């Protein structure tokens, strides 16, 4: 299953001009600041917005082709849509909401699949309730279940967490991760939160002023200076695709292996071999030209400088290549000059174990 999109649409204040493809499986994040045209694109894919010009195909079937005068209405597109504001039907119980799309699906999920999904989303206790009695997080989960039970060929999620507070986000994110790992439906996830993108996405499309500014794997992009410059994301760091390789029980530490080295972090209760995502913030990486000895930090990684971005102010970002894995260090411009850091220079990156983002995230099973 895949989606190919190519649209151009002029709004009153701005225009959207984008072409991309979402391939089978996994989560593609449509990332960018508010007003970048993210929602317009997903609305066009769902058929809720009719672009002036463009072609959209879902699983190879064209649903929009303005040259040929083709417009498949939303009810015939088989696209699941999870809206930011949930949009549950207020006059129906949770169960009737969940079954709304299921009843109308050309191919219905089996009773077992329905029960499994209800369990996966933790909705058993809510089935008889009305939406007005649900918390924001519960509404989000029902909306997710409702969309999935319509057996869509593609799931669109338009900032499903944006309206929720931190506690509710933390409640829903694990469900989204489980869905990504289990449901095998390609998802297009709209977000302006780098945190969510880092946790969920495999591929990131950066949208800026209605155009695609960058695209690539989440690991490549997050450690990429061009991406962070373009996204204007305030605090960023590299995301690392790691595997639990060793538990140092006596020290309460866990060793994580990645392409290019190892990272020692505080103890993580995960079996050896578990794939995870960790985030190493740029501010937490220190650089040294010579291998430091007698240092408290547990992680001293051999890297090469691959790019340097100076400014604004005293800051400079240094992009590092650690055996194929990207890292970023945020240091001062003065330090860049003192250490003579230019692309190609070998340098040691020092990362304190305690600074590695404790929100360790499961990576998708391949």
């Amino acid at each position, binding site marked *: 299953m895949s989606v190919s999109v190519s649209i151009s649409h002029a709004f009153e204040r701005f225009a959207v001009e984008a072409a991309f493809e979402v391939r089978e499986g996994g989560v593609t994040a449509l990332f960018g600041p508010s007003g970048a045209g993210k929602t317009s694109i997903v609305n066009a894919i*769902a058929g809720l917005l009719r672009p002036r010009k463009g072609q959209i195909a879902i699983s190879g079937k064209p649903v929009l082709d303005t040259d040929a005068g083709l417009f498949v209405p*939303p009810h015939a597109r088989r696209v699941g*849509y999870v809206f930011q504001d949930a*949009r549950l039907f207020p006059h129906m119980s949770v169960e009737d909401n969940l079954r*709304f799309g299921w009843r109308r699906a050309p191919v219905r999920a089996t009773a077992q699949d329905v029960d499994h999904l209800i369990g996966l989303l933790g909705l058993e206790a809510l089935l008889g309730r009305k939406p007005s009695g649900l918390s924001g997080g519960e509404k989000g989960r029902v909306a997710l279940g409702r*969309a999935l039970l319509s057996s869509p060929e593609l799931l669109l999620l338009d900032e499903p967490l944006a309206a929720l507070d931190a506690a509710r986000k933390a409640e829903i994110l694990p469900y989204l991760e489980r869905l990504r790992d289990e449901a095998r439906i390609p998802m297009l996830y709209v977000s302006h939160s780098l945190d969510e993108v880092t946790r969920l996405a495999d591929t990131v499309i950066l949208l800026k002023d209605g155009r695609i500014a960058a695209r690539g794997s989440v690991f490549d992009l997050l450690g990429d200076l061009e991406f962070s410059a373009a996204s204007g994301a305030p605090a960023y760091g590299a995301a690392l695709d790691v595997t639990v390789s060793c538990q140092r029980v006596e020290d309460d530490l866990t060793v994580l292996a990645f392409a290019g080295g190892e990272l020692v972090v505080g103890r993580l209760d995960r079996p050896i071999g578990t794939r995870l995502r960790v985030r190493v913030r740029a501010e937490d990486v220190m650089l040294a030209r010579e291998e430091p000895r007698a240092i408290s930090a547990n992680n001293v990684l051999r890297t090469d400088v691959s790019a340097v971005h100076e400014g604004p102010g005293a800051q400079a970002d240094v992009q590092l290549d650690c055996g194929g894995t990207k890292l970023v260090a945020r240091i001062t411009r003065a330090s860049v000059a003192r250490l003579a850091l230019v692309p190609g220079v070998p340098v040691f990156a020092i990362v304190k174990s305690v600074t590695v983002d404790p929100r360790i995230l499961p990576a998708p099973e391949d």
Partner: protein
Amino acid sequence: MLSPAESEALLLSLRVSLVAIVWAFPFALAVALLLAHRNFPGKTLVEGVLTLPLVLPPVVMGYLLLLAFGTRGPLGAWLLHTLGIRFAFSWTGAALASGIITFPFQLRAIRLALEAIDRGLGDAAATLGARPLDRFVNITLPLALPGIVAGAITAFAASLGEFGAIITFVSNIPGETRTLPLAIYSALQAPGGEMVAARLSALSIVLALIGVGLAELAQRRARAMLGP
């Protein structure tokens, strides 16, 4: 308890009002849908014309109806000859007049109910595979139902009190067009009719109270429908 003439007036009033609400409803729903969901040139003018029955003197309304639907009026003559429907001096004429005069009550209530529905719900239903008619029947109508019922009850209650248009259009014929207000008026015209007028007035008050109670009940039902 009630004399035959009194209960005749009561039953006639109920029948006229019920028929008035029922025939006007589909028109009110259609126009409300149009006004709530569509913009078109001259919309403000249409809205103005549709509230006219509310502000025009009922006697004027009755006179206009007489011109149009009287047996020699263009619409009246056509209806009589093609469909055999006669409005002049008939209770159906009273129902026609009541329906037109209370039309704005129904229209306004339905329109407000439709406009209060989050349009996003229809979009959500569409992405879940619901066609336009399916969305109307299963999302729009149930959510607008409290407003529809409230509008119908208000219109019914208002219709029970219609006087000027009925007496002008279809006259004051006992058993045919003499509804409660006309019966009260006639009683007061007759010598010694004060007692009858008082009893019929009390009856009207009771009916009005029942109407208010039903409207309140409908609102509670609606809240319960959307409640937890």
